[in-house]
Each structure stands twice: as C-alpha cells, then as structure tokens.
C-alpha cells in the first residue's frame, strides 16, 4: 500500500479548503505533482506545498491501495477526503469541517474531533471518529431533501445537533450523547445513540433511531417494550405529524420529559 504523508507544520486561522486531499486524486500522482495541487486559504489560491509538508512512497498506485496520513492541527482544514471512493485517509488529530463530504467508499479515520458536516451527503464507505463530532454529521446541504444515503459513521465521543438530518440511508452510531434533533426528517437510515438524545426523529417517516435516553416528541406513539441486543427499550412510532412509520427505541425517558 502506498502511504502519502501530509503534515501541517503550523496552525492557520483562516481556514484552508483542501477537497483534493483524497486517494482518488492523489494516488496516481507523483510527490511533486501532489505538492502542486490546488488548495485555497480564504481568497488565496495556493499549492499544497505552500502550507503542507508532503512525503511518502513515490510511486503512483490505485486509490484502493493508497493511504493518506495527515498530521498537525487540521481543525481548520476543510473538506478532507471529499468524494473519496476508495483507500484510507487517516487524520492524526482534529479535522475541520466537511471531512468526508459526499464520500462514496474507503475509510476515513479521525483520531481527534471532527468539525461540522462530517460525512455530509455521504453515499458509501466508513468514517470513524475517535473524539467528538460537530453539528450536522451525516446531514445534507441546505434545502436538500436527502443527507447521507449510505455508508457508516462511527463517533466514539458525542455528536452535535442535527445528527443525520434528512438521513436517507446508511448507519450512524454515537457512543456518547447527541445534540438536539438527531435523525430529523429521517427517511430510511439507522441511528444508534448510546447516550442521551433531545427530541430524536422529528418528522421522520422511515428508518430507526435508538437512544440510551431521550426526551420524546408528543407526536410519537408509544407501542410496546421490546428487547434489542439484550436490553429493553420502549418502542415508539412516528413522527405522526408526517404520518411517519419510523421506529424510535428509547432505553429510558419519555414523552415531554
């Protein structure tokens, strides 16, 4: 497997947009060519090597045989791994907004925290975040009817608000808590939140949401106690304001509490 290492030696205040850092774009390029790919910092068009140090295996390979390792404080570097379809991107530290945008395959690993819009409009592949994720993980773009459509996002810490908004497919798992409105307008995806969720599944019509505890909307109908993976959950169906048939499983908590 070809490894390409991209280091950010210093922190930048004005964010850097680096949507070309993805195995699909870099795998077939020499190190010199990689140094010259375009990134933007605010209104300045730069070469990758203007702000990053690039090293790694010199020979081009296929995307699926490529691993990109990013090091440094990347919390202001946006759109890493955008549209990637194969290979591995590993971020040693925090990632900026829109990591894994429209991702179709491969693996994106973030060892620290992820910024907002992680895996926005994702269609396939796998994202693993060791820390927390910001708002709108697995969500869509403003005004669109679909967010994430496929693939898997695992967040080992907490997730921000609007997790999986307009989710149309795929799976999101959050080991900690989720912010307000996880799974709103869910149209067929699966969300598992091990911690607390505030008003999950608003306007969901399909799919399922599981939460360790939750404040449940009054427009969900309680059905029964069910057992899932050895634990008991209250099962609700909703969101009835949309005549939804979504399933909401809550280990503890209830409507309006």
């Amino acid at each position: 497997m070809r490894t390409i290492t991209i280091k950010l030696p210093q922190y930048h205040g004005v964010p850097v947009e680096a949507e070309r850092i993805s195995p699909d774009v870099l795998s077939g390029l020499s190190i010199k060519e990689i140094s010259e790919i375009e990134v933007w910092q605010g209104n300045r068009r730069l070469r990758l090597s203007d702000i990053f140090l690039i090293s790694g295996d010199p020979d081009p390979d296929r995307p699926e045989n490529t691993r990109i390792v990013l090091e440094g404080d990347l919390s202001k570097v946006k759109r890493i791994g955008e549209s990637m379809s194969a290979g591995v991107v590993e971020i040693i530290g925090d990632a900026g907004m829109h990591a894994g945008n429209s991702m179709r395959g491969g693996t994106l690993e973030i060892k620290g925290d992820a910024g907002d819009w992680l895996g926005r409009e994702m269609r396939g592949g796998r994202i693993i975040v060791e820390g927390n994720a910001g708002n709108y993980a697995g969500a869509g773009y403003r005004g669109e009817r679909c967010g994430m459509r496929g693939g898997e996002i695992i967040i080992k810490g907490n997730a921000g608000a609007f997790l999986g908004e307009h989710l149309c497919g795929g799976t999101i798992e959050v080991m900690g808590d989720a912010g307000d409105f996880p799974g709103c307008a869910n149209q067929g995806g699966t969300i598992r939140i091990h911690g607390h969720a505030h008003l999950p599944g608003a306007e969901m019509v399909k799919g399922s949401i599981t939460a360790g505890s939750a404040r449940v909307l009054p427009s969900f109908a309680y059905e029964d106690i069910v057992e899932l993976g050895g634990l008991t959950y209250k099962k609700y169906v909703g969101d009835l304001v949309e005549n939804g048939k979504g399933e909401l499983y809550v280990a503890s908590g209830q409507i309006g509490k």
Partner: protein
Amino acid sequence: MRLQIEDVLCTFCGCLCDDIRVEVDGGRIEKVRGACRLGSSKIMGHSRIKSPMIRVNGELREASYEEAYRKAAEILVSAKHPLLYGWASTTCEALKKGILLAEEIGGVVDTTATVCHGPSIIGIEEKGLVGSTLGQIKNRADLIVFWGCNPSEAHPRHTLRYSSNASGRFIPEGRKDRKVLVIDVRETRTARNADRFLRIQPGTDYEMISALRMIIGGKAESLPEDVAGVSRKELVEIAEMMRSAKFGAIFFGLGLTHSRGRYKNVDNALSLVSELNSHTKFVIMAMRGHYNVTGAGQVLAWSSGYPMAVDYARGAPYYNPGETSCCDLLSRRDVDAAMIIASDPASNLPRGCVEALAEMPVIQIDPFENPTTFFADVVIPSAIAGIEAEGTAYRMDGLSLRLRKLVDTEYPSDVEILQAILDNVRRLRDDN
C-alpha cells in the same frame, strides 16, 4: 423656510411605515409626526461622526475621506478572508455596491439577519413560506397570532397599521372583528391586550407546534394529556381557534427563532400553517427587525442565489449558514478583517464575536458613533439613508418602497463611499 414633507418612510423597524410627516427647516429636520417613539427618535437623529478617522498608534485621528478610503482598501486587499457585515439599515443600492466589492476582494457578505431571523430563513429552505403582504392581513385576517414576539414594544405601529387593530375591507370594525392570540414564555404587553394568551415553558415551542399539528391533522387522541406543561385540552382549544378562523395570520419573533430548537421551530411552524390551509386560510410572517433587513436578503438572493452569509472567497458564491455566517466566522476566527456598515456588532453580537472583531482590522461606515467605533481602525461617516440619501428598502412582507432624500448633506452616501473604496481597491490591484 419651513417645509412639510408627506408620506415619508420611517427607517427604524421592518414595518417601514410610509405615512410619516416631517417638517424641515433650514436643511434640518424640525419635527416628525405620525411616527412611533422609536421611529421618531431615529429620524430626528443623534450623535454624528463628524469626520473620517484612522487609528494610529491605538488612537483614532481625523483624516480626509481620501485617506480613509485608501486605508480601507489596503485592509480589504491584504485580507485573506474579509467579512462585510451589516447592511440592514442602509439601502439596497448600497448592498449592490457591497456585493460587487466582495466579489472583487473575495470576501464574505452577511447581514444582521444572522442574529435575528437567520434561523427563519433556514426554516424556509426546508418548507417554503406561506405568506402574504401586510395589506392582505389588514383586509382579511380575523385571527392574529403573535408567537414569541411583542409588537407593542418592538414594532409599535404594527397592530394599528397592519394587524390586530387595523380595519380593512372584510374586517370593517378592526379589533372587534378579530381575535388575537399570543403564545409566549412571558406575559408581555402584547399578551395583555390579547383575547387569549398561551404561556409555554422556554424551549418547548417545537413540541407545542408538533402537538398543534397533531390536533389539526385529526390525531389529538394520540397526544399525551400534558404536553410540556400545557394540557391537551388547552391545545385543542387553541387549535380550534386556528381552524375556525376564516383567515389566520401568525407573526413570529425572536422568541421562536432564538429559543432552543431555533430553525426547527420555524420549520415546524411553517408546516403547521401549510397544513392549516387544508382547512382554512392561513399565512405566517417573520417580524423583521431593521427596516431593510428584508431588502438585504432580497438583493443578496438575486445577486448570488442566497439570502445571507455568502462567501465569495473562491470567486463563486458559497453559502452555508453555520459556516459562512458572521457569528460563526468570528467566533471561530475564520476571518481576518471586517467592514461594518450601518450596524453595531459591538452591541449586538455575542461576546466572543466582539472580542474577535476587536483583534482584527475593522472598517466602520456609519452616520452615527456607536460602541463599534471604539475598536474600529478606519471610521467613515456617511449620509443617513432615507433622510439624506435616497434608495430602496423592503418591508417585512417583501414590498419594496423608495426612501427619499429629505435634507441636503455634506456627507457622502453609503453608495458613494463603497464606490470610492472599490476604486481604491482596483487602483491598489493595478499598482501591484
């Protein structure tokens, strides 16, 4: 010579009242009639900035306009990600120039909507907006709902001109022919004048709206007896009040958009109104604050496709509130210079944003001194739009009106100032 000018537009709030009478004498405004207290004081004016100023060694010093334009252009050209913020209290023509400037320097344009009805706009992106002009409500609405807003204090002539107390073709008796419902977390003056007041717990708007949608959709029996502290019975009565109106109108304010739930609250309210139209006629409208905050959104929309928070850094407009909106950019320190026009972020933005502004080069364009002046590096005094300069403004319902020039001034208009800065930007570019 004393001159009386009729049908003047008031440049205070989103009501954009256009029936004000102003008396002018010797090039000065002497008297304002027909405006509310807030509007009157705005039109009369207060402490003007007398001269352009540039900060040197920590102190603002008087400078010529040419020096100020040049300095402003230098700041903007050297910035990697400048923010051009404000725009709600000036003309559409000024913003048109501002957008052109932003395109040329690769900056972000955002309006004060970001701290008021920005969430409402995001809600509209989810659901659309079922609305009307204010005159439609004046002529027809037999139910007025004020949700999380208090026009008695913030939009004083709204009720008389457009809503609860106005009379119209199908509402000849005005207030007698209408019911007024107020939904809020506290009993405001508006609530005390209502036929019915529903007090809700802070942060429960979304649940309340979902419950109302359930009742309107015929699913009341699936609701719990108590919804976030309000009884189902009371909610059924409120829903019935809405459904039985011939023409209902909801006006909503920051109580809905800036409480927990934010744009989802508006999103849900838009659906409620949409669904009420299966039973009767209903519209909804945001109570916009600054007199031309609506116009700022309109100009940005036709210029860029987006109504606020537009980032031109990469040459094509990019829009993503939460990322490209003023507060987010400042609190994350994603921008490195700011031009503030006709606005006072030092008083209106959260503390973290103000601290960020204080750390970066700031250009201020405003007729009046305000707390933002205290950390601005370049201060450019301007003519007062709608009093000393003409131009266009949009009322909260989207109707556009032309602001008039009432008195002469020595100050350049915002349009002239922005054009001069743009000229200096182009000159600097050519020199390099």
